[in-house]
Every structure is written in C-alpha cells, then in structure tokens.
C-alpha cells in the first residue's frame, strides 16, 4: 500500500470515527505496530510479517508473533478480525480455500511451514486442530480416535491401538463416559462430548501443537468448563493456540493473550496485563466492552 492511499484511508477512517462517536477509539488509533510482548526467547512457532489475502481482500496485515512451548496463547478480537485465518495459517488449513494466499515467514521449531519442499501431511500431524463446530466422523467412537494413528502408522498392532485410543480418551476426559460404547457412532454423543472426542482424536496422533478455533462456542457452560480444565492439563505436554470470543475464557486458560483488530495484531501481553492494564487503547476499548 502506498503512503498516499494509506493517508487517504486514515483520513476516511478518522472522518468515519467522528461520525460514529463511540467507535472513534477503534478507528482513530494507530494500529500499525504491535505493542507488548509478541516475541519470546525460545519459540515453538515463529511467525514474521504474515500477510493473508483472500483474492483481492487482505485479511491479515503483517502479523508477527511467537508461541512458546507449554504455553497457551489466546487470540481475541471482534468478529472478522482475522484470528481464525491466522490460526489456520499455522497448519496450512488455508490451503483448502481457493484464492487464499499466505505470505511471510512461518516456522515450527525453526523449520519453515510454507515452502515448495514442505509436505503438509507430517506438518498437520505435528500441528493438530480442533474446530469450532464438533466434527466427529460418522464412524464409531473407537474409529474416530483410531483414525489418526492408523493413517500415520503409529500403531502396528491392535493392542497398541487400543492403548492409544484409551489413553487419548482418558486425557480428553471422555473415557469414563464412553468406555462401554466405543462401538457406537461418535455422532450420537452430546455436543460437549463430541468436542472432547475431537480433542481426543487430535491428541491421538501426538501432535506438538494444538490449534483450537473457538472450541467452546457451541457448548454449554458445564461442557465449556470441562474443556477449559482439559486445556489446562494439556498445557503440560503441548503448545496451544486458542481463538475465543469469550474474554473470561481467555483470561482463565491462557498465559499470553493476543488482541487482533481488523487484520492487525494490536497487542500481545501476559494475560493478566491485557485484562487488568492493557497497553493499547483499542485493547482497552475491546475488553471493557466499548465496541466489538
């Protein structure tokens, strides 16, 4: 974007802000540079200057962020601000969307995520994903969890597979509820159980990173609490990035919180700082509910 058009768009934004009154904070503020602590010493995932375009529309503007080991990073922000798009860059799920282009430097343990020589299959085995809507396969509960280990050849014998399935369901906190009906279809479970089944399915391939895209948005408070507990337990072994619309959830489960606004990463800080003493006025406006 040239300087001239940038100035022009800033001017129109300012003019709109005056008209809209309350939203003035959202538009007049400078959002070009991330404030806070986006970078850390030892990064598991390292992203620099990531730009994402859907056709002509740019969804992510030059985002840089590190995510460390055994850390939960929450991504918050108003709808359409690019948090999910950014999350989906990390295991290249955006590849399935026609017309989506990703630029910038992304690496996992120093190895590039994008590039002509990178095979997405092992990448996605290392970076698992849990989606917004529970999406168990229309197979049995056992087959759902065993799917990943089977395609990656993780288990060679039936007994090994049984162990992986039981272990994953245990860690997802679902074992006691389903141990007597492992052969029943996974689609017959309740919403919360389905989501935990999806988490069990994701951890059955022993990934290093788990990406969660609003995993609790379709669940009731009890199921949500169960999954938040689970995220906290999983942190011991995994790196977790979670997109959420619930600020309470972000505050409860994460160590660092990233605030996205209109495709820009505005602020990254320790969760406590973000929610008690935000550095950026946009973050403050969002968490105090002045817009969003």
């Amino acid at each position: 974007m040239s300087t001239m058009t940038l100035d022009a768009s800033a001017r129109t934004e300012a003019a709109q802000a005056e008209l809209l009154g309350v939203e003035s904070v959202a538009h007049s503020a400078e959002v070009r540079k991330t404030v806070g602590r986006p970078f850390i010493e030892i990064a598991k995932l390292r992203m620099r200057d990531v730009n994402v375009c859907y056709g002509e529309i740019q969804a992510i503007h030059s985002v840089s962020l590190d995510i460390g080991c055994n850390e939960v990073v929450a991504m918050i922000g108003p709808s359409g601000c690019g948090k999910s798009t950014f999350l989906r860059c990390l295991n290249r799920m955006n590849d399935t969307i026609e017309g989506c282009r990703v630029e910038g430097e992304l690496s996992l343990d120093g190895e590039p995520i994008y590039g002509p020589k990178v095979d997405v299959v092992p990448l996605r085995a290392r970076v698992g994903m849990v989606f917004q809507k529970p999406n168990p396969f229309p197979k049995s509960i056992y087959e759902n969890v065993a799917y990943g280990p089977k395609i990656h050849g993780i288990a060679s014998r039936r007994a090994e597979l049984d162990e992986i399935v039981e272990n994953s369901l245990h860690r997802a906190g679902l074992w006691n509820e389903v141990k007597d009906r492992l052969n029943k279809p996974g689609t017959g479970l309740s919403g919360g159980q389905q989501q935990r089944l999806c988490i069990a399915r994701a951890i059955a391939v022993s990934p290093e990173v788990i990406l969660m895209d609003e995993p609790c948005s379709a669940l009731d408070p009890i199921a949500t609490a169960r999954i938040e507990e689970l995220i906290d337990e999983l942190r011991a072994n995994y790196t977790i990035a979670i997109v959420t619309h619930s600020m309470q959830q972000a505050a409860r489960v994460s160590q660092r919180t990233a605030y996205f606004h209109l495709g820009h990463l505005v602020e990254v800080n320790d969760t406590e700082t973000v929610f008690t003493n935000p550095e950026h006025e946009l973050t403050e406006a969002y968490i105090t509910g002045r817009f969003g």
Partner: protein
Amino acid sequence: MQTPTLLALLLLLVLAVYGTGFSRALGAARSLGGVRNLASLPSYYGLFAALWCGLPALLLLGAWIAFDDAVIRAMVLGSLPDKPDTPSGQNLLYAQIQNLSAGHLIGEKTPQLQSAADYLNRLRHNSSNLQAFLSLTLAVGLAAFALLRCSPKLCAREKVEKVLRAILVACACAAIFTTVGILLSVLFESLRFFQSVPVSEFLFGLHWSPQMALRADQVGSSGAFGAVPLFTGTLMVSAIAMFVAVPVGLMAAIYLAEYASRRVRALAKPILEILAGVPTVVYGFFAALTVAPFIRDLATSVGLQASSESALAAGLVMGIMIIPFVSSLSDDVINAVPQSLRDGALGLGSTRSETVRKVVIPAALPGIVGGVLLAVSRAIGETMIVVMAAGLAANLTANPLESVTTVTVQIVTLLVGDQEFDSPKTLAAFALGLMLFISTLVLNFIALHVVKKYREQYD
C-alpha cells in the same frame, strides 16, 4: 355455440369477476380506512369470486362433454322403432345415422334413417345451446352469489387456499391413479396369460419360444414361455453395464467433487451430463455398428467364438449411457458431505486421497448406493440398445460373447406387428411387463429406503 368460443367467453367472465371482486374489496377497504381492515387481501376476494364463477362452470362443461355423446346416442337409438338387438348391430346402425347426418352416407337412404339423422342433428344443436346456456348461467349466478357474499369480515384467503389445496390433491391423485391404472391393466392381462400358461412354467421354465400354433395340426410351434433365459439375459446385460458405469461414474464424481477446480467442474459436469441426453437409439446403432463388430473381431483375433450381436456390446454401451446417472448423483452426494468432516480429516494429517477414501466416501456411501440402484433400474428397463446390439435369441448362457435377449426386448418383439390380443403370445408381454414392474419397484423401494437412511446421517 362451439366449445372453444364458450371456453373463451368463460375465461373473460372469470377475469371480469376477478377484477370486480378485487376492486370491490379495495373500495370496501378504502371506506374502512385501509387494506389491513379487511379479513384478507383484496386479491383473495377477487380469486374467491373468480373460483366460484369458473370452477363449477368448468366442471359442468367437462361432465357435459364427457357424457353428451352417450346420452344423444341412447336418445337417437331409443327413437327408432325397430333396431338390432346386438351391440355391434347397434353400433353399425348408429354409425350409419352419424354419417347421414354429416352428409356423406354410402349406401341406401331410408326415410327412417333420414328422420333419425335429422333428430340427431337437432339433438346436437340443442345440446350445444343448452350446454352454453347452462354453463354461462351457472357461472354468472355463482359469481353474483360470491360477490354478494364478499364482505370485509369474510376470510376469503382461507376459502381460496382450501380450493387450491383440493386442486393440488387432485393433481397428486392423478399421478397415483395413473400408476395404479397401469398396474391393474398389466395385472389383468397377466392373469389372462396365466390362465393358459401356468405361473410355475413361466417363472421357472428354461425355454423361451413364444410361437403358438395357429392350427391344430401345425408342427413345431408348440410355444414355450419359460422366462428364465430372459431374466438371466437382462441380469447379464445390466451387470456388464454396472461394471462399466459404477467405477467410471464414481471416479468421475470423486474427481469432479474433490479434485477439480471450480472452473473445470463448471465445464466438465454439463458435458458429462450430455451423455444422458443422447437418444438411446443413437447409442443402439453405435453399439450395433461399431462396438459389436469390434468385439467380434477382437474375440476372433484371440481365438474366441463371438457372435456379431453380443451381450458384451450392449452392456458396454449401456454402461456408458448410465455413467452420468451414477456420476451426477454421486457428485451431489459427495458434495453434500460437510466440509467440516474434510477439514477434520485434513487437520489430522490425512492426504487428500485418504480423506476421500476413509472419510468422504464412507460418509456418502448410502447416497451413492441409492444412486447406483436408480441406475440399475434404468439399466433393467433399457430397451433400444439391447434390441439393436444384443440380438433376439433367448439363449440361456453365461458367456457375454453370445447373443442374449432381455425382458424389455421380448416385450417389444411380442407386441410389434399384427397380433391378436388374446393369444398367449401377446399376453406374455403383459406378464413380462408385470415381472419387470415388480422388480424395478422393489429396486426403487430399496433405493429410496437407503437414501432415507442417508438423510439421517448428519444433523
């Protein structure tokens, strides 16, 4: 008055009544202070009056046209002092009178006949006048009645919708009754067939040679009605067709739904569906003139005996014909599998083909089976290709290089040409039709059942 003129007049009347009802309702609404003070919208008052005006008059007209010939005939014949006793004699006499009244009698003209013809003309004239008078009176009277009933409190919408629902039910019933009618006519003819040929012989007989002796002393035309060779022939040709259509169609569908870019898909799918639009006769001579000789030459070159009309040729071409059925239905079903399942599988690190094989196809399988069964019904019912490419010889064989014949082909050959409609040879066609109807019905039933089960899959 002629019927078309009458119909046009009725139509004009209905339109005028609609306009009147509409404008009267608008007027009433204006004096009440707006359309919302009426019980229904003004157009419903118009429709209400128009339906009262048009529907009974049309029904009367229909009934009149249906029955007026029979009534006139009875009256003319009743006026004659001496008439023949047999129905065929009466028919002949009445035909003579009709010809005379139309002014081109061939033969002798008696005064009695002449007076009957005059009477017929008079009756016809009166009938058409009476018809016009009655239907127009009915229309005008009922329209006046309906317009008088129209008041802001009358809920015209409910009444109109009741009538519309009745019309919808009548249309649905027409389709059902047609099916039942076809079934019954086939059933009764089949029962007549089974009076001369036992059911067990028809179902289990291994020899099909539907020639009946015309004279008692005729040799070599004993007639054999064992349908087994026909059904095995049908089965073989359909099986060959499905062997071609299912893999090709399914893989084409997978390519279109999962791999093709949007542009390729938009181009390729309609082109594939053109295959379904080619007339079966064209497929038939393609099979008979191109594929069958090619297969015969190929078989001869590897030292096999092949007849120039073979089950293989007909089956292959039929398979090509039903590819679009399989591919189009499967493509729709595969597209209906939610993207979230694909994302789930890809997110676990499946490759594209693993996702297709292990998640998408199993999820779509019931729908695919439904589509394949519909294609099977289509293959069993197909006639033209088999007539031209598979031959007419009812061989009981498992060799696809020999010529076979199918149920539909035999129905065609039994009914083509001059036949008496009471010999077992002709009636056999109805029995075959009944069997075919039952088997495709069962297949469709299974297909619908499978599709219904599929609908319960995700939600």
